[in-house]
């Protein structure tokens, strides 16, 4: 038989009238798509190698290149889609699991796009954030059941407040490990979080010794592989996050290919250079809520109860009761990662078929914790596919305290979501450890752009809540009356706990 492999997904369209043969594309492409032929004085592009990252397009000085979808089609078939056919061809050749990167790209309902926000008209004044103070400050951590004030002398707070993270905006950078992303990318995230007044998260890869200075703005993760977990590491962070699961691959552990485990990464993770860094699917010391409680308190004990300890889980069908258990186990915050959350590497079949969208998870967890009267005991951090400030504000109105962004942060640094993070050949210098590629990400530019993104979203959030007549993000939290659903069925509206468009308060 003729061994057939899937056709290239992309075509390179080169405008020969504009191509000046500068060969920047040929020099820059890590997938060796472009090559200069000196005999013919032409640049030839091998479409089959193109991953569609658009780096050549960005670098071409004369805009002579367009990367576009390959129009080659199989006979149209809604069951046998091109993707289904191509995946079979790949697996018939490799005999293995298909790997991919980033989050689920399947057209499951994006509830954010079916939720509309409210605004004030006549009966309640809207607020102009450019003229009046507007508060986005958010605190993550356990809140007391009630507050007692000592009036014996000067009035002062008698209740002891648990440790809190103080955020200038309800947006943090989600967990991405040093190893899955480059040193410069981590540095940019750490600097931007520190300078803006929010937090970044180490992911499960430990904390490089250079990044300890950003410790007060770092959430350190303890995952099933325990990579890089030391006393110094736990003490360095502002908060500790126990990672149980991740939205892109609920139920399975992490996999950092050996090629990405360079010397500094081996040192940070405390594993041999060049070996695959495999974190187990479960924590082998956590098989129940009681076990989780032991780890939470072991970590609290190890850090003298000075910092919040939270738990990150993937949004799965039982997310509400599990969250209730996590809060009762003593977590100060729960991070929930929806099915559209990204990853450096995951089996495609899991990324695309496991978990639930973050919108539903926020709604059901917030409702459940309220019903049980324990909502104040832990903050909810939502993660998984936040694309814009309106997604953030809707998440907060559904009940989240803050959100984690990661893919959006990478896009701000150049990423075009080509989903090839697992190859280690990221042309943008993000998901790679190749020294030829990592220097393409100048952390000074990246820090500036991340701060710009946080600033822009914060301004937009202020505009939107001002329009609702609200002057503090705290007053929007769980305020689902500000949301209305469109194009959703009754069950979905009920699960989200929102009214349909048109229905008044």
């Amino acid at each position, binding site marked *: 038989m003729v061994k057939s492999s899937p056709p290239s997904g992309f075509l390179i369209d080169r405008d020969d*009238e504009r191509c*000046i043969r500068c060969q*920047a594309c040929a020099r820059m492409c890590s997938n060796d798509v472009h090559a200069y032929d000196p005999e013919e004085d032409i640049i030839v592009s091998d479409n089959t190698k193109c991953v569609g990252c658009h780096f050549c397009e960005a*670098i071409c000085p004369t805009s002579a290149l367009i990367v576009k979808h390959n129009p080659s089609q199989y006979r149209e078939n809604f069951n046998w889609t091109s993707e289904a056919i191509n995946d079979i061809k790949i697996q018939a050749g490799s005999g293995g699991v298909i790997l991919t990167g980033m989050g689920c790209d399947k057209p499951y309902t994006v509830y954010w796009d079916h939720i509309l926000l409210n605004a004030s008209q006549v009966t309640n004044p809207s607020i102009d954030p450019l003229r009046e103070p507007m508060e986005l400050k958010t605190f993550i951590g356990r809140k007391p059941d009630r507050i007692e004030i000592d009036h014996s002398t000067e009035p002062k707070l008698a209740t002891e407040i648990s440790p809190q993270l103080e955020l200038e905006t309800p947006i943090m950078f989600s967990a991405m490990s040093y190893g899955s992303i480059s040193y410069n990318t981590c540095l940019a995230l750490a600097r931007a979080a520190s300078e803006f007044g929010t937090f970044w998260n180490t992911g499960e890869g430990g904390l490089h010794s250079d990044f300890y200075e950003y410790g007060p703005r770092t959430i350190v993760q303890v995952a099933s592989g325990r990579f890089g977990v030391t006393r110094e590491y736990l003490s360095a962070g502002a908060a500790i996050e126990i990672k149980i699961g991740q939205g892109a691959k609920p139920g399975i552990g992490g996999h950092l290919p050996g090629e990405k485990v360079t010397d500094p990464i081996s040192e940070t993770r405390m594993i041999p250079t060049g070996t695959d860094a495999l974190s187990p699917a479960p924590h082998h010391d956590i098989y129940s809520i009681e076990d989780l409680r032991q780890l939470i308190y072991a970590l609290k004990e190890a850090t003298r109860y000075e910092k919040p300890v939270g738990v990150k889980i993937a949004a799965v069908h039982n997310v509400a009761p599990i969250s209730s258990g996590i809060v009762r186990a003593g977590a100060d915050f729960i991070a929930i990662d929806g099915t559209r959350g990204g990853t450096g590497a995951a089996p495609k079949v899991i990324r695309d078929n496991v978990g639930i969208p973050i919108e539903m998870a926020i709604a059901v967890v917030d409702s459940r914790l309220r019903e049980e009267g324990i909502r104040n005991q832990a903050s909810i951090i939502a993660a998984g596919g936040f694309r814009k400030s309106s997604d953030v504000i809707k998440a907060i109105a559904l009940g989240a305290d803050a959100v984690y962004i990661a893919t959006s942060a990478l896009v701000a640094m150049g990423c075009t979501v080509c989903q090839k993070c697992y190859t280690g050949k990221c042309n943008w210098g993000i998901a790679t450890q190749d020294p030829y590629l990592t220097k393409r990400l*100048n952390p*000074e530019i990246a820090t500036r752009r991340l701060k710009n993104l946080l600033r822009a979203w914060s301004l937009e959030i202020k505009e939107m809540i001002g329009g609702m007549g609200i002057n503090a993000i705290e007053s929007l939290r769980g305020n689902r009356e500000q949301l209305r659903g469109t194009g959703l069925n009754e069950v979905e509206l009920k699960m989200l706990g929102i009214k349909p468009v048109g229905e008044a308060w």
Partner: protein
Amino acid sequence: MKKIRIKERYCMGCRLCEIYCATQHSKSKDLVKAYRGEYPKPVPRILVEEKDYLSFAIQCRHCEDAPCISACMTGAMYRDSTSGAVLCDDDKCVGCWMCIMVCPFGVINRGQEKKAISKCDLCLGEEEPACVKYCPNEALVLEEE
């Protein structure tokens, strides 16, 4: 004086600085026309040096104690009194190439047409040098020394 600082750890070796430099010093100052229509082809006054993954772009350092000025027998090479840049007066240059011989950085080249040399002029008159302006990764920056 303002000089171009090289941040070699961010130079990705794309060589766009060379392309924009050549275009800036071409007749048309247009990328496509300069490369596809002009003869002789424009030559950059900046050069990217590469070894393995290390690369950096280098152009005239505009030395305080410039050996090219002392070596120039016709007085064509001079220091611009306002900017402090080391420049060459093409009308005086006879193409003896002594400056090329003495330059410790190897950043002076033979000119294309006339019997004169070609070197970085800091794009005086422009807002900032073309190499600095167009470096996609800000590996070249114009800074007060």
